[in-house]
């Protein structure tokens, strides 16, 4: 069906929301509580739009498209409502971009910038909440929480680990772990999905902070997780050829095997690539000790050894263990080496183990 957004005719699918249809057409409607993975929440009201023939402002994240609908996303009235929402959020809690790990990737900061908010104009007394740094990988700063509910929805309905929930009432309302215990003492398995969807700095990864790498300085590369066989697609962030942190790859997430999620190993277990004891040189055993050698020396010794054994005992005296960790291309090359170069079918790997 067709709807009109900001004077443009836009294609929409039945069942789609106005927000989804607009974003699919490249029209940006801001939203702090809505996230494609967690769906509509109807909390922040930042995504409000005007619909011709309807009174009041409508939340576009919860508004189904109708044939012929005429929508405006950027009028002075919408602008002033959004401004008030962001000012209220900024005035409450403790938002300090200088020291915040989310600086540069914060959706609230982004909205404030685009709305031209210099500094919050309201004074709201809020209740300071202590930092929760009790878990190994995630830092929780409740004072930066805007109660959007994304993390709760993701934890309850996305990864279904069912740890995070809202607790307490009114201005005391907070996101808690289990029955309000520190994250490190809760049933949280540290999958990090809450960090992945948090629009602000309330939930951040400790890894880049410890490495003094701000997210906007790091660049992502799409890699396949090296652990189990699910094949999760990961954005591996690096800076100056150093590992920084990992996030689930979210482009086309519905079609990816991991649907935009990771587990504790994929999220936090990739820093072994930077381990100080990575092998950096070929090693050859001399007088019982493994010592550093040149590539030519190491490869010549392997080739000479294989040739000698093949001559003396035949090709089937040589065995090959290929790897469930290397690529298909490398497995193919290794199998070709065993079969065509050495002449044996003695090749296997750890599929049985």
């Amino acid at each position, binding site marked *: 069906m067709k709807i009109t957004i900001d004077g443009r005719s836009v294609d929409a699918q039945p069942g789609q929301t106005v927000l989804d249809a607009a974003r699919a057409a490249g029209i940006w409607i801001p939203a702090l509580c809505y996230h494609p993975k967690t769906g509509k929440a109807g909390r922040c009201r930042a995504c409000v739009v005007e619909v011709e023939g309807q009174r009041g402002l409508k939340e576009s994240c919860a508004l189904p498209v109708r044939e012929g609908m005429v929508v405006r996303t950027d009028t002075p009235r919408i602008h002033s409502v959004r401004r008030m929402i962001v000012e209220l959020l900024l005035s409450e809690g403790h938002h300090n971009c200088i020291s915040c790990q989310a600086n540069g990737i914060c959706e609230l900061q982004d909205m404030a910038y685009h709305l031209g908010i210099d500094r919050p104009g309201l004074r709201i007394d809020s209740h300071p909440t202590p930092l929760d740094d009790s878990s190994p990988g995630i830092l929780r700063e409740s004072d930066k929480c805007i109660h959007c509910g994304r993390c709760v929805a993701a934890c309850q309905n996305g990864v279904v680990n069912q740890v995070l929930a809202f607790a307490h009432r009114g201005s005391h309302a907070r996101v808690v772990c289990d029955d309000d215990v520190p994250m490190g003492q809760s049933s949280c398995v540290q999958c990090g999905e809450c960090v992945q969807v948090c629009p602000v700095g309330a939930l951040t990864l400790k890894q880049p902070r410890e490495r003094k790498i701000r997210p906007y300085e790091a660049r992502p*590369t799409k890699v396949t997780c090296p652990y189990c066989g699910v094949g999760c697609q990961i954005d591996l962030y690096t800076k100056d050829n150093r590992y920084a942190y990992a996030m689930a790859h979210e482009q086309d997430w519905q079609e990816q095997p991991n649907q935009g999620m990771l587990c504790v190993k994929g999220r936090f277990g990739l820093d*072994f*690539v930077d381990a100080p004891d990575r*092998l950096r040189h070929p*090693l050859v055993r001399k007088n019982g000790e493994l010592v550093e050698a040149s590539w030519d020396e190491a490869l010549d010794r392997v080739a000479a050894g294989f040739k000698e054994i093949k001559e003396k005992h035949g090709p089937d005296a040589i065995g090959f263990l290929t790897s*469930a960790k290397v690529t298909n291309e490398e497995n193919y090359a290794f199998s070709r080496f*065993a079969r065509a170069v050495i002449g044996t079918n003695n090749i296997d790997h*750890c599929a049985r183990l």
Partner: protein
Amino acid sequence: MTNSMAEVVKSKVILVIGSNTTWNHPVFGSLMKRAVKHHGAKLIVCDPRRIELCDFAHIWLQQRNGSDVALLSGLQYIILHEGWENASYIRERCEGYEEYRKAIEFFTPEKVEELTGVKPADLRAAAELFARSGVGALYYCMGITQHSHGVDNVKACVNLQLITGNIGVEGGGVNPLRGQSNVQGACDMGGLPNVFTAYQPVTNPAAVEKFSKAWGAPLSAKPGMTLTEMIPAAGDKIRALYVLGENPMMSDPNLHHVEESLEKLDLLVVQDIFLTETARLADVVLPGVSFAEKTGTITNTERRVQLTWPALVPTGNVRQDYEIVADLAKRFGHDFPRTPEGLFEEMRRLTPSYAGMTYRRLERVGLQWPCPSEDHPGTKVLHCGKFARGLALLTPLSYRPPAEVPDGEFDMVLSTGRILQHYHTGSMTRRSSILNLIVAAGHVELHPEDARRAGIAADDRVVVVTRRGRIETRALVTQRVAPGSIFVPFHFAEAAANRLTNDALDPVAKIPEYKVCAARIERAGTAKA
């Protein structure tokens, strides 16, 4: 997997057996939990341990370790006696029914209770839920395969899915969850002793001729040895071993023997990124690169081939793994392609199920094999309409006990496996700072009743002993294991589970029996030698 992971939300009923999914395949475990919580799927968990999925299950069957053939056949006995089977599917798509049906008669609910410990009423409830809920998926993992009768276990899974008509349909299938990022790919690429790429047998003269022509060399038509055969033959039939990115000194059964065997070799070559337990024994160590430093394709558990890109430039005097192999081949006068894409292009011309894949096509979300031509969309569900062999074979099975069962001296059942925070031989996860903050060392899971009887308190140092070896570790007293059972994760070199495990193999698949052996447990210090 015959089917795809995303389909789990379309299953009406899910049976999980021998897979601790939320620990070993956590992201897929989330999808499974979503299927139950939000899509109305019924969940049946069959596991000797009370795994996390039991909290989501409608029925949990706690069978004894190693009794899976009896359990699965018992379900089939009830389904067939109640007439809940899919008779037209059996008639049109299966063969061997008569003999299979006779074999099933052995597995009466009473017999099954005797063998598995599962009560007839629970078995019946599970059979009814599975057979009468609609399309059903079966997921399994190493809890099914790592037995001296692992092949029978798999066949019992297949039989169940055949008589209920669940193979070749969306939301169904027989779905082994593969435990390594590219174990599927390593198999597809011919990293097995009996087949070339895409399972073309080395005993098929046409395949030998095809590969021989492509590779410019004569090839052997004699199937090679499996890993579990090669290691014990070291120093005897096997004189040299070239190990690429594997760590048999941690991953193989009965490690004491593995070490003795590897030391007997004339030449041990290890290509890895760390000086692993195996690399320490090597004559030559060749430094390759990590997953984050390479380009190439990886095939996941649902046969999806995905591209991976280099995020880091390797440092030090190291080489890409394919370069090392090509450099060696060169010394024998063979020219190998010198780029990942060059290798992929050569491979796909020889590999029918990958023939339609190109790097460009794989870029976005990958493709699932078979993908025979460049206009083929890939295959989400296998065996739709027709099986590769025509009709599916229903296999008659009989119950066989594990190779080693508890007795007076070794009175506990020991099972091994993975935990959520660590992985396989630990060469990656134990170098991760956060994972080691969460779990720094190994343990043995022990039921409170057994702990009380042995005078063991939580966190005590304990010794686990089997006929093959002993380890000292920490007691994790938990009701996750059944009384009489213990569980040891195998990631921890200082308390290596595989010093204990039995190297009894399945006669066909040559897989070791990691899930059952006899052991005893004592407080450290009080242990007999």
